[in-house]
């Protein structure tokens, strides 16, 4: 076996804001194997949820992940409402959809920026984040906070979007649209970005099916799945939009899917806003007094893919079991396919391409160490090896 070098990326690496340890096993410039070690972000949220009442769980699941902080309450609301069997009002549906889609825009802009940063192309980073700010301002206007919106509850939403705010929202949206045009044009035409991302980190259709990957990662490889269309919830059946797919499966295709999805999101929000005008103001909440025994599944399409919540109720005040599956949980596993065989300089962007969200993934600890032909040693051998080194050092002293 040829000699391999271990290059650790993380856990506290300047490129990543979140703690995460990737071990790249390289032969020269070529990545031969990748492993990741986690647990740095494990907070035991599923266990915590069992101690909290249904109302409190919303605030907890919101803090699974700050970037997709609507998707989790959204899925939780869907699953609890399935247990109760309650249908929320149209106005609440529109508001939920607006928040969800605004989040998609801000998350995709954030990703575009970070992807630029990972490529060493900081202009894109600064631009994308600058144009993300108006979206956050919208959030502040609608919900009172830039992140973690606390809008959801069982049976509806906590705050209404008053009709008098709608023109202002539309104004900001048209600004965002203009800036998105600018950004999309700049990225799609940029020869540097083409050169760095085309043919890099390719995931084939079969890889996606094997790893059960979801969201833009799957759609960029031609797997046409989107929970918003396949298992419609909230106001998605009431508006017109289309699912964006691409065929190539490389990093560029993933960027393309995300960029074009932002236009769909803007169009969905505009339709929801005009839908809001027809509904009665303040009619956003259905009273739910008791959560009966049973179980419910809730799905939403987060910016990164399908969020899945499974709630078991025993008729008491808090969930008996609350299982959360975030999209990155399946998407991160595809690193095994997308990074191996490429040069190290392409590894970071391939990792970033699925928009990994470690805090989502690690609401539970997962530690990965898969057997493969490229392994140098197994865990026991490494331990005994390091023990023997320590012994040698001790003897020298």
């Amino acid at each position, binding site marked *: 076996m040829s000699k391999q070098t271990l290059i650790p990326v993380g856990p506290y690496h300047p490129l990543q804001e979140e703690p995460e340890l990737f071990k790249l096993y390289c032969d020269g410039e070529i990545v031969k194997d990748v492993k990741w070690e986690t*647990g740095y972000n494990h907070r035991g949220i599923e266990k*915590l949820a069992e101690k909290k009442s249904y109302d409190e769980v919303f605030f907890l699941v919101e803090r699974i992940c700050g970037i997709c902080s609507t998707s989790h309450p959204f899925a939780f609301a869907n699953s609890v409402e399935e247990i109760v069997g309650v249908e929320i009002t149209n106005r609440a549906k529109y508001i939920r959809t607006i928040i969800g889609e605004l989040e998609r825009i801000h998350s995709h802009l954030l990703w575009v920026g970070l992807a630029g940063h990972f490529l060493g192309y900081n202009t894109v980073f600064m631009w994308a984040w600058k144009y993300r700010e108006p979206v956050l301002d919208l959030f502040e206007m609608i919900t009172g906070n830039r992140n973690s919106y606390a809008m959801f509850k069982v049976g509806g939403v906590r705050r209404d979007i008053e009709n008098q705010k709608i023109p202002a929202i539309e104004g900001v949206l048209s600004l965002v649209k203009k800036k998105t045009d600018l950004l999309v044009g700049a990225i799609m035409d940029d020869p540097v970005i083409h050169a760095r991302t085309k043919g890099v980190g390719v995931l084939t259709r079969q890889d996606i099916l094997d790893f059960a990957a979801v969201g833009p990662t799957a759609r960029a490889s031609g797997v046409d799945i989107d929970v918003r269309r396949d298992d419609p919830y909230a106001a998605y059946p009431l508006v017109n939009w289309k699912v964006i797919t691409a065929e190539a499966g490389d990093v560029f295709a993933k960027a393309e899917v995300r960029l074009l999805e932002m236009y769909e999101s803007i169009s969905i929000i505009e339709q929801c806003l005009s839908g809001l005008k027809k509904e009665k103001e303040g009619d956003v909440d259905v009273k739910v007094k008791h959560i009966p025994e049973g179980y419910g599944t809730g799905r939403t399409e987060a910016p990164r893919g399908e969020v899945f919540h499974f709630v078991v109720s025993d008729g008491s005040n808090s969930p008996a079991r609350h299982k959360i599956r975030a999209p990155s949980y399946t998407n991160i596993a595809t690193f095994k396919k997308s990074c191996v065989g490429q040069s190290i300089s392409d590894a970071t962007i391939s990792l970033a391409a699925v928009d990994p969200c470690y805090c989502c993934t690690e609401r539970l600890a997962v530690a990965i160490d898969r057997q493969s032909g490229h392994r140098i040693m197994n865990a026991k051998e490494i331990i005994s090896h390091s023990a023997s080194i320590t012994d040698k050092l001790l003897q020298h002293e």
Partner: protein
Amino acid sequence: MGFKSYCFKKSLWLFHFGGASCNNCDIEILDCLTPRYDLERFGMLLVGSIRHADVLLVNGSINKKDKPRLLEIYEQAPKPVLVVAIGACGCTGGIFAEGNTFAGPVDKIIPVDVYIPGCPPKPEAILAGIVKLLGKN
């Protein structure tokens, strides 16, 4: 001028340690560096290694796996170093303080100079906190 204020007389370089956080504070810290807030105009940089830094920004609840790493990073830091606990989780543990992996808020592990509460604190609040930190020394 004391030794400490001499050390922090010029532009502060920041190192960011994200514990078991929800990413919101991480993103807001990064947001401080982007054009609207532009912390870099004060010469403040986010640096890649704690050995180059004057300020250690810590956010997120610290779990049992993070704790030894945080201590290690604190030990590697060139002294004197200023520590800023950011966000509700950094200050107290926040909503995750009851979790079975929680290892204590930041100030139970390393000394903290400034607390910036909020869930997440707005970039303005983070800037204000860092300015207060400058005034303190």
